[in-house]
Structure formats: C-alpha cells, structure tokens
C-alpha cells in the first residue's frame, strides 16, 4: 500500500500551513532526506524532507493551497515494486494513531476552552440583562472615527520598534538572532534591512553579558531595546536587570538615567516544559525602579512598546509567543502611543469584574462571552501595565460590580492576583460582596505531557466557575 505523506507540524504552535511549493513531481524518485516541498507557517518557510523512500505517486494537495491542517495527507509515495495501480489502495484519510490524545498538534486556543462546560446557546443579551448603553470600551488615545487595521501582535511589535528607530537615532535593538535570522519568533523581521547592522545587533548567547552591555549603553545615553529570545533566558541576566538597571537611578540620587527596554516572549508556549514555560510578571512587578508591561492585543503591543522605548526608565515588556500570531485591530495613526500605567476596560459589564492581562485576557474574554449567555454581565479589565498597577480602574469597577475574579497564567503564590486581592481588601473592602477569587496556573513546574500541561494552565471553565462562586450563582 502506498505511504501517505502527511502535512507535518513544523513548530510547537503550528496548526495549519500553506503548501507553498512542490519540489518533486509525480513520478520522481524520492530518497530519505530529499526536500520534497516547501511549507509556509506564520513564522517561516520550511523545507519538508522525505522520511521514506520511493516514487512520488500522487499529489493530493496542490501547491498554493492555504490553511492545510497538520496531518492532512498531502501526497502518496509508492514503495519499490508498487505502481500507480496501487494508489487506490491508499487509506482515504490519515490513520489516527490510537490511544494518542496528543496526536493533534498542540492547540493553544483549543486548550483554553476544552474543559469549559458548554452553556446552552443563548442570545447575547439574555432576557433580564439590560444592554449597557455605553458598550464601547474606552480608548481615549484613539479619536472617534479613526481607521482600524488588522494586524498580528508580531507585526505590531515590529512596527513599534521601526517607528521609534526612525524617530530616534539612539534607539537600537540587540539580542540573539534578532538581525540576520529576523528574530527567533520573527518579531524583528525586516529591521536589519532597514536599519543596518549597527542598529540591529546579533549577540552571542551570553545573556548576562549582553544585558550588562545594554545597561551600560543606556547609562551612557543610548536607548537600547534588549530582546530576550524568551524571558526564561533573562534569568541568566536578572542581576543586571534588577541590580544594575532598576536601582541605579535611585542609588545615584537621580543622576544616572537608564532608558532601556527589555522585551521578549514570556510565559508558556506549547509543550516546551518547565524550563521554557514561566510567566515572570510577578517577579519583575515586585521590584521598584522600573516599569512592567504585559500587552494582550496588537493595539496594546504597538502603543505600549512605543511608550516603553520613549520612557526614561527601564521597561520590561513581557510578550507571549502564542499571542504573536493573533490578529487585532490597530488604529491607523501617525504616532499611536498608549500611556504606561493605565488599564483598559475591554468589555463593560455590571455583575462582576474580571481582571487579567496578557494571554490571561483570552480566557477572560471567552469566559465573559459565555457568561453573557448565562445571564451574567461581566466587566473585563485588561491591566496592560503591571507596575505601576492601575488599581484605581479596578476599584472603580468593583464599586459597581462588588465582585472580582482575577485571571493569570503564572503561579498563584505572590502573584499579580495576590496583589490585586490585597489592594482591594485595603482600598475597597466595603464594596466587596464576596471574597476576591483568582484563577491561575497550577502551583507546579510546567509539565511536558499534553494532558498534564492542559491541567496546569488555567481554562475558561475555571474562570466561569470562579465567577459563579463570587456571584453566588453556582
């Protein structure tokens, strides 16, 4: 029976791709290791190498086809002794490996809601729930009627850097693979071409060293953007980030300035296990002397990264690999900058306040949508900045809803959630009708196994349960 060649998964987060080009034609001999096709993922164009040998019998997916799901048969390979007549004997669809719950490519979004109880389909405004008249989220930086453009978080970050580099010759980018490779996650795509190797600098794998070099350059007046391939590797450099960057302005009595951005992917990606999956929000937010930003949408990413580059202080920008590929509306403006330290009400509501940030917002928004179907009108706050924390916006909301649930992927102990819970107790105790509940990652290092990883992360169902508990509707 001919062997099926399946659409391969080419990255930890890939679910589908474009079959860009066939490099072998029907009838061609194929030996193991031959490049047979090119596939485009959202990050890169990859070559697909043959694993088995034989003759290409039939092409099932024509080149140019977009959105081909991982594991779809794309061609049939004839083994020695087989002929075209055998092609019909090929199984109709890919054999699903048995007892393999991990068989489908890791699905970052799928895992969010997989455990959530599915509510019965209900109209968005359930009976009895009055539609809020001012349902439009506030975004004072965007004048009414501004044109919007869809872009990915990845593109928004790149545009933010490019715009600031055009505007200020002291801004430069340094990090591993940022220049020639175009970024390990393709965030710096095109920057080397536009700004040259003086301003887009590939570093060796020496985080502690190049972070110190960046901080020193900032002491000397430049405005470095230091990219960490992921924030897991910033642990090598945390001494320079905290002891050198964050404290020197204070220690010098205000004489030494350190305008620097530390940015990169933070938090869990997909199936990369404990050493590569950690949200450092609380670690950095703990420390005075710098600002900590965790964007959720492309709008957040664009407006806040630009603000961070301009800010005279060290700024930690915690991005997320899974969000890099998500698309959002971004205002088309000459110079769109968001204020650091200001949260955004992403969705207005009156029954409960859900506070989150970064990728946690994906659970929060999905939960709010499902809760609406159950007649619970949630207000969702996107913190955007974690230090300084915009607790006023949270308090204002809680004064209205009297209930609060926080959502984040990090460990629960000493988390951003802990801080919000404490500050609400301190500043809004009399307005609370229920204890503040938090939905977080589980208090364990991130496991690799697909089923355990899913359990370790928060999910939409847990957010809904927490909301039901604080609204006493469970």
């Amino acid at each position: 029976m001919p062997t099926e060649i399946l659409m391969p998964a080419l990255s930890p987060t890939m679910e589908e791709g474009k079959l860009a080009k066939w490099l072998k034609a029907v009838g061609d001999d194929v030996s193991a290791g031959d490049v047979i096709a090119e596939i485009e993922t959202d990050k890169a164009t990859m070559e697909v190498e043959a694993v088995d040998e034989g003759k290409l019998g039939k092409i099932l997916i024509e080149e140019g086809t977009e959105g081909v799901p991982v594991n779809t048969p794309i061609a049939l390979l004839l083994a020695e002794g087989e002929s075209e007549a055998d092609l019909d004997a090929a199984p109709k669809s890919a054999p699903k490996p048995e007892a393999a719950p991990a068989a489908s490519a890791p699905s970052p979004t799928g895992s969010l809601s997989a455990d959530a109880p599915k509510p019965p389909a209900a109209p968005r405004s359930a009976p009895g729930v009055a539609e809020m008249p001012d349902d439009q989220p506030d975004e004072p930086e965007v004048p009414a009627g501004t044109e919007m453009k869809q872009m990915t978080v990845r593109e928004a970050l790149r545009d933010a850097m490019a715009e600031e580099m055009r505007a200020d010759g002291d801004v430069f980018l340094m990090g591993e693979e940022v220049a020639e490779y175009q970024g390990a996650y393709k965030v710096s795509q095109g920057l080397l071409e536009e700004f040259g190797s003086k301003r887009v600098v590939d570093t060796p794998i020496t985080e502690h060293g190049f972070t110190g070099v960046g901080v020193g350059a900032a002491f000397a007046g430049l405005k470095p953007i230091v990219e960490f391939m992921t924030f897991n590797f910033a642990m090598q450099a945390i001494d320079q980030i905290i002891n050198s960057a964050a404290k020197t302005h204070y220690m010098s009595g205000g004489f030494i300035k350190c305008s620097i951005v530390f940015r990169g992917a933070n938090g869990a990606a997909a199936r990369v296990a404990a050493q590569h999956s950690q949200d450092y929000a609380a670690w950095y937010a703990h420390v005075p002397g710098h600002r900590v930003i965790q964007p959720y949408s492309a709008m957040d990413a664009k407006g806040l990264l630009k603000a961070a580059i301009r800010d005279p202080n060290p700024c930690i920008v915690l991005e997320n690999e899974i969000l890099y590929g998500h698309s959002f509306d971004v205002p088309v403006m000459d110079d769109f900058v968001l204020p650091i330290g200001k949260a955004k009400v992403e969705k207005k509501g009156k029954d409960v306040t859900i506070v989150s940030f970064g990728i946690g917002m994906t659970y929060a928004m999905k939960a709010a949508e499902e809760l609406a179907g159950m007649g619970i009108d949630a207000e969702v706050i996107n913190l955007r900045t974690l230090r300084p924390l915009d607790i006023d916006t949270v308090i204002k909301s809680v004064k209205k809803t009297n209930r609060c649930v926080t959502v984040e992927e990090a460990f629960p102990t000493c988390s951003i959630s802990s801080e919000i819970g404490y500050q609400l107790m301190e500043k809004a105790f009399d307005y609370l009708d229920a204890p503040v509940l938090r939905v977080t990652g589980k208090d364990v290092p991130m496991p690799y196994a697909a089923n355990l990883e899913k359990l370790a992360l928060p999910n939409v169902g847990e957010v809904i349960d927490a909301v039901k508990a604080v609204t006493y509707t469970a």
Partner: protein
Amino acid sequence: MQAEAKVTGDAKGPKAATSKTASDFSVEDYRRAYEEMLLIRRFEEKAGQLYGMGLIGGFCHLYIGQEAVVVGAQMAMQERDQVITGYRDHGHMLATGMDPKGVMAELTGRASGYSKGKGGSMHMFSVEKNFLGGHGIVGAQVSLGTGVAFANRYRENGAVALTYFGDGAANQGQVYESFNMAKLWSLPVVYIIENNKYGMGTSINRASSTTNLSQRGRSFDIPGEQVDGMEVEKVHAAVERALEYARSGNGPYILEMLTYRYRGHSMSDPAKYRSREEVNEYRQKHDPIDHVRKILLETHKVSEDEIKEIDKRVRDEVNTAAEFAQSEPEPDPAELWTDVVR
C-alpha cells in the same frame, strides 16, 4: 575537517606512554560503533517523523550528523563516569544505554517515559546510567557538570564527569567561571564542546571572537585539543586520553569535537543561514556512519549481509520504541501534583 589531535596549553598533556591512537580501534569496536550510531540516526529520523504527526510537541532538537561524538566518547568511558549535556540530548541518552522505548515514550509525553512524561525531549535523566540530563538553558550544564566532578573528587570515587556543550554555549559566562574552579580545584571533568558550527542560526564566526574553542581554557591553564568529530575512532582515542588525564588528578581537559548537524536547530528552524551545498558536503563526504560502514566493508571485509542484519536489527528496535511510545497511556492526571518536592 581533518583536524590533527594537537594538544596545546601550558599544562602537560596526556603522557605518551598511555596515549591511545585511532588505530587501536578494532573491528569489534567498529561493529559496535556502527550499530550504536545507526540506532541514534534511525531513532532521530523516527522522532522527526512523529513530531511531524503531532505526536511529539514543543522543542525537539535532533542529533543527526553528530553521532560519532557521543558514541566514540561513550566507548572510552568507565561505568562510573557521568554524562551531562544540553537539550540536544537523545543521542547521549541512547549512547549511555538508556532504553529507546523509554526515551521515545518521554518524547510522546507518556507515563512510561524516562521522566514520566513531565520533562519531554530536553529533560530526561537516568540515575542508573549516570546520565544527569537533559538541560534547556544554554550553558547551565557546564557548571552542573563541574559540580558533579566536584562530588567525584570529594568522594574520591575515581569517576570523571563528561560535560557536553555546544559552540554557542561556549560563550556563556558561567562556562569560564566553571573552568576556573575546575582547574583551581583539579576537578575530574572532561569538557566536550560539540562544535557543529552553528548556535541556532548564528555561525561560530559571527558569535565568537576566537573560533578555536579547544583553546578557551588557556588562561586557566586547561589543555585542549580539536578532534575530528565525524570519525568515531578519533573521538574514542581522544576521549580515552582525556579521561585518563582527568582521572589521574590533573584536573579538567577540553576536547573540541568538530562536527555538523544535518537538520535544522529544532523542528521549526527553516535553516536559511547555510547553503544546501554545505549540508550536502557533510552528508555525502563526511558522514560518520558511512565512514564506519566503509571501514567495516573494505578494511575488515565484513559482509554486506552482516551490515544489513545490523540495519534491520536497529530498524526493528526503533519501530518497537515508536510503537511503544504511541500506545502507552498518558500520565495519570494526579501526576500533575507529584514530584514537586519530596
């Protein structure tokens, strides 16, 4: 590619009387090396295939092309010696004799994997085989391996810690902090730098001010040599000498293995930073497995049939491992909470 085994550094090198040469490699050694290298090659090809099917997730760094390094080194080791490395670790595990079934089952995240499915490709360990990981943070294993050597000296157990790292890792600061301590305290450690010419997409020339990594120990007075890491007998001889040196109380020794990885850095690397011609040059002219096969056939007149028999045995073993790894259950959900602390 043809690096002479040249010892430099001010410390005295291994004594000539005890020094082994590549010509000591017997036909039996070649047979064993062939089978072990082929096992790694086929295992990695299978892992790549399972990754493409979504059965393996996350990062998966294949060892294809570098097989002679771990196999040659392992053949020179004593049972009490330890191995520690980074995330490109499947080859090291198979070479230490860890069960391919358990390694593959870890790759698919199953309960019977070496880390019960909790660690994945980059994080496996075997106390029984003295394999201490499997580490995801570039360079971290260098200090850890030095610490294992510290324990060896402390216990006076005669063991040497083989500490592997890449050309990219060779620029991390903790490498040099470790070198200093290792020499200062005469720790029994052999540093094996697997120089495959690239750290992810950055060639060694773009990352390192000096590219002869074997000389990176000079300011600590640690001797080092470059070795042709595509020829298993040369690797074996060099490691045997280095182990002897470290075991007899002389302190650390550095071996820079000149090698090459055929595949991308990890599964998601489009590898646009090097030409297909460059890859083919190594594959076709310097393949470590072809090299051994040729010696077996031509120099030692081993029959084609015997080679085919080994090929088949290896294929069967890998297929068995792959089947095992797909049919074993995932970890019990309760395992989420175990092993955090004891």
